[in-house]
């Protein structure tokens, strides 16, 4: 029983980590808390729903296309909402408010157009039979989640650590003006970061949609709460911290749901957020730079 809970927790946490990774990447490089981010998650899930329902695509084809679609959407929204503020060097809170207003408008518009009801992926999309390894049930959907998360996270780390592009991104995170003076095209990199993070959120939306089989316009909003907890616990802008914190949060939620009450898992996540803010505002791993007022 406990082993099963831990496996489920790790798998859920992997998706949280994937989702939070893009969120923390945006903050790390672009210095923006982008609240539209949750909408990319919903958008990815809806695109996968459309491709599999309408055109009968298999999930392995729908997942990358939906992720890329969410990435393109992210570039467009970032350009519309944030270019102007970046140019005038507006304070952090201005960009936070713009994305907040935009995300409410986007959620409300998509609810008005698509309806608020919960939709489901086609039932035969992925095998429902489960493998049993040492008494632990693992479904095909969970295997796909694990593989996709490992590929995406591994790819992102390889990009950031092993390529010149990653070096440019890290330089931009350090100091965008100096990076620009060194000949780095910061505008293009900003678009790239938007694409990568949008794609990570979109992929997360598809995978969570697959795991719980419940897709609705506001699903990104429930996910954002996890995103906030993960980036605060892991440290704002800290990629490795987000990975570890995401996994931990998944495990804590599954254990809370299993042994305490499933309705309290949000409250437990929030209590962790507040406790970390009181004790270690730099994040558990203490590498994020906290600007004190």
């Amino acid at each position, binding site marked *: 029983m406990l082993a099963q809970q831990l496996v489920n927790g790790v798998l859920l946490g992997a998706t949280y980590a994937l989702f939070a990774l893009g969120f923390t990447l945006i903050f790390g490089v672009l210095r923006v*808390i982008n*609240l539209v981010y949750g909408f990319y998650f919903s958008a990815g899930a809806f695109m996968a729903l459309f491709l599999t329902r309408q055109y009968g695509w298999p999930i392995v084809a729908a997942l990358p296309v939906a992720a890329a679609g969410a990435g393109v959407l992210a570039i467009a929204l970032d350009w519309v*909402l944030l270019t*102007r*503020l970046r140019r005038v060097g507006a*304070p*952090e*809170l*201005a960009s*936070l*408010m*713009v994305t*907040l*207003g*935009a*995300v*409410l*408008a*986007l*959620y*409300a*518009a998509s609810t*008005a157009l698509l309806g608020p009801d919960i939709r489901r992926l086609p039932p035969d999309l992925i095998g429902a039979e489960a493998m049993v390894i040492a008494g632990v049930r693992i479904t095909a959907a969970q295997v796909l989640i694990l593989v996709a998360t490992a590929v995406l996270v591994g790819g992102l780390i390889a990009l950031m650590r092993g390529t010149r592009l990653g070096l440019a991104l890290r330089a931009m995170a350090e100091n965008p003006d100096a990076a620009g003076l060194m000949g780095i095209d910061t505008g293009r990199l900003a678009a790239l970061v938007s694409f990568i993070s949008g794609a990570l959120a979109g992929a997360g939306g598809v995978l969570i949609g697959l795991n719980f089989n419940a897709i609705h316009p506001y699903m990104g*909003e*429930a996910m*954002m*709460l996890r995103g*906030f*907890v993960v*980036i*605060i616990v892991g440290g*704002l802008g800290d990629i490795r911290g987000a990975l570890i914190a995401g996994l931990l949060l998944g495990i804590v939620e599954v254990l809370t749901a299993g042994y305490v*009450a*499933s*309705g*309290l*898992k*949000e*409250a437990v*996540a*929030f209590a962790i*957020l*507040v406790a970390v*803010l*009181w004790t270690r*505002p730099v994040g558990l791993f203490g590498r994020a730079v*906290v*600007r*004190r*007022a």
Partner: protein
Amino acid sequence: MMAWWDDFFWTYQNLVYALGINGLLALSIYVVLAVGQLSLGQAAFMGLGAYSSTIMTVKFKLPFLLVLPASCVVPVVFALLIGGPTLRLSGVYLAIATIGLGEVLRAVYLNIDYFGGALGLSGIPERAGVGAIYGLLVVALLVLWLVGRSHIGRAMEAMRTDETAAEVMGINVPRYRLGALLASAVLAGLAGALSAHVSSFIGPNEYGFEPAVTILSYALLGGIGTPIAPVLGAWILTLLPEMLRGLADFRLVFNGLIIVIAVLFLPRGLLAFRLRRS
């Protein structure tokens, strides 16, 4: 004159209440924005005021004169819990910590039977009315106007414009910020208690993400130059969907876009007056 008022009141009773309560909510976000911070927990504070006051009235049968001031206690405790650590950090921390609060509390109200679950709490006696709502609104406006004109208001404006310069001038920035957040929790808690005691029913879904953003749109439409401006912003955004029926379905889209447009193009709001000080 009285017959005319009675007629009008019976038709538009809920709208009259909503205008006053939304005015109080607009003031509650104004206080936080005025010190250069962003709290997205106003709807959550309102919900805490509504739930705690309803429990005091319905389950403990306390008189309204006691319940109304006591309804601020729980929101203030939550504001202290969240504001204590975050107000010493940069502004994004308070925003992140408060934005989730409403959704978390919604899950708690939904899943704990004592709070009525999905059905909410009903059978709340109608203890508040136009007098209590508008009386408090006028008092709050007056107090904030006087505070805004005093040296405190000057300090608040200084730290909103440049927190480092304000600190160098000897202003205790974290303390002012915490004071502002607590005042905003008090106002939102009162608004919650008043709205619960005019509507006979409260439910878990009324204090989540959407109302939190809507409250922010009140202040951004009006601007935060004077306390009256956010109240007028709230009135415009409350009246518009009533007058333009077609807008009702897209009310939230509209509120969201107001925020985007206000921040991008009207950073001082529609009513960009400033307080005069001697």
